[in-house]
């Protein structure tokens, strides 16, 4: 079987975890199918990264070019298309990240590749690929098969696979593919860091976090009282920020903060993977949610299935009783 090609993702000089997660999965798929694993490294001044990747792949294809300094789909896509056309990999893996979701779908159209997005598992049975992905915001798993094609494209969900240690000694190959100048149709300007607010939730041992289930802005005061009684801060999932109830710096998740408190109490949060990725390393996770099938319960140590409007006041009373 032809190679498994993994697009190495990096930002501001650092390889991102999803790169190693994909390479680890690619190696186990490679073992099962006989396919070699190739890491494709596009960037500027990426020599050190190539050395790191050697341990994780049979071959590292390196293209070092100033035009590739910042990710830009308008530059990356034609380069990637050329590499895929010349090498004919059996499988192309790209992270389902802010970069990957911007790059993979248009590449799939341009090369007419069978394409599945946000995969949480992949298997190869008798030279046939199958992917598992989630629908309905993590409530249902879908198995997807691909049309018979020389190359199949997937994006892979961050944290779906563990970061594997690399022990191999792959070779580094310099690629000679023409890199276009950044076109006027899409130019990178700059990265802007998120604004810093009054409370740094990453510094707190106790986080009381709320989600869509809180429903009304006026219910926030009840949560703030609970947080105060536990000496914690109030954080949230994305819908609460979208609604304008809490500022962006209180958001836990992939596009917000990553927190590792001693206690994470998730109230009315369903637990989509974007949120879980920001809090799954908390020491103790407790979830209160109406829906027993909410994905948050798979990440939690303790759970209460119930209406938060009833559970939160009752919990506040019980804590007060214990303190009395």
């Amino acid at each position, binding site marked *: 079987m032809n190679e498994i090609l993994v697009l190495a993702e990096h930002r501001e000089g650092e390889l991102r975890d999803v790169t190693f997660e994909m390479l680890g999965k690619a190696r186990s798929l490679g073992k099962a199918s006989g396919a070699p694993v190739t890491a494709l490294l596009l960037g500027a001044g990426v020599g050190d990264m190539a050395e790191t990747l050697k341990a994780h792949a049979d071959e590292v294809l390196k293209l070092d070019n100033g035009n590739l300094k910042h990710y830009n789909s308008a530059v990356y896509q034609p380069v990637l298309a050329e590499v895929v056309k010349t090498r004919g990999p059996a499988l192309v893996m790209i992270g389902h990240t802010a970069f990957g979701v911007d790059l993979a779908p248009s590449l799939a159209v341009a090369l007419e*590749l069978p394409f599945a997005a946000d995969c949480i598992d992949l298997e190869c049975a008798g030279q046939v690929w199958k992917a598992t992905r989630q629908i309905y915001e993590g409530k249902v798993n879908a198995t997807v098969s691909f049309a018979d094609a020389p190359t199949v494209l997937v994006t892979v969900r961050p944290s779906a696979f563990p970061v594997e240690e690399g022990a191999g000694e792959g070779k580094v190959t310099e690629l000679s593919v023409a890199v276009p100048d950044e076109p006027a149709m899409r130019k990178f300007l700059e990265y802007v860091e998120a604004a810093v607010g009054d409370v740094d939730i990453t510094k707190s041992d106790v986080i009381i976090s709320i989600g869509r289930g809180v429903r009304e802005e006026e219910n926030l005061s009840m949560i703030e009282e609970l947080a105060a009684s536990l000496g914690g801060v109030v954080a949230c999932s994305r819908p609460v920020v979208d609604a304008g109830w809490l500022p962006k710096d209180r958001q836990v998740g992939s596009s917000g903060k990553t927190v590792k408190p001693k206690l994470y109490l998730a109230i009315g949060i369903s637990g989509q993977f974007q949120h879980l990725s920001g809090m799954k390393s908390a020491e103790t996770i407790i979830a209160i949610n109406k829906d027993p099938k909410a994905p948050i319960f798979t990440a939690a140590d303790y759970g209460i299935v119930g209406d938060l409007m009833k559970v939160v006041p009752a919990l506040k009373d019980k804590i007060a009783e214990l303190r009395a």
Partner: protein
Amino acid sequence: MNIVVCVKQVPETAEADVKLASDKKGIVMEGLPLQINEADNYALEQALLLTEEHDGDVTVVTLGPDSSDEVLRMSMAKGAAEAVRLSDPAFDRGDPVATARALAAAVKDLEYDLVLTGCISSDDGNTAVGMALAECLGVPHATYVTQMEMGDGEVTVGRELEGGLVEKLQMKTPCVLGIQTGINEPRYASIMGIAKASKREIAMKSAADLGLDAGSVGEEGSRTRLEELAFPPVGEGAEILEGTPAEASGKLATVLREKGFV
């Protein structure tokens, strides 16, 4: 400035007890309220705000069953000028690429400076149709957009990356942008608007109307196939504290005390 917005009707499943259909190829839709996909609602609002500021019309386009007329009418009630629905059994069960191909056939003949889509749908969650659509149309794209500033023949865009970092880009129009939730505050339709929209025409397009071979779209035109749905394995999961709210929270308070939080 004219803007096309692609919208989709989805079932509200965030707090629903989702059940699988007997063929394991879909979920039981009965009893689930239908609504505009959340990110699409922000895309629509963004289009309305921009056309209010810079003049021009918003056209909403959807691919979906009869019930999705409701989403188009609600969009017109909020201010969209025209509505198009891709209505043909041939479009059903397409993967993101096949769906993008169908949408492109409808969008390419419209006059537009921007195409806005939600960056993700809450049902299929591919995060892909908008960007695939851009490639089908041959125009530039960017997704996870949380900031927009219009210039002359160009737009400055802020894309939200992991960790809250924002990537600023300058793009030429026309282009396709995938709009992230939270970029604005979506409005509600007025009663008057809803009444007026109920009488408006929706342009229906079949595959043949769009010059598409039925085999190139929908399930037949897809290069991936849904095999089977299942509930995610529960794993170890949480220890559920049972009882009435008072009982369960009593147990939780005890856990919190044992762990030294109370």
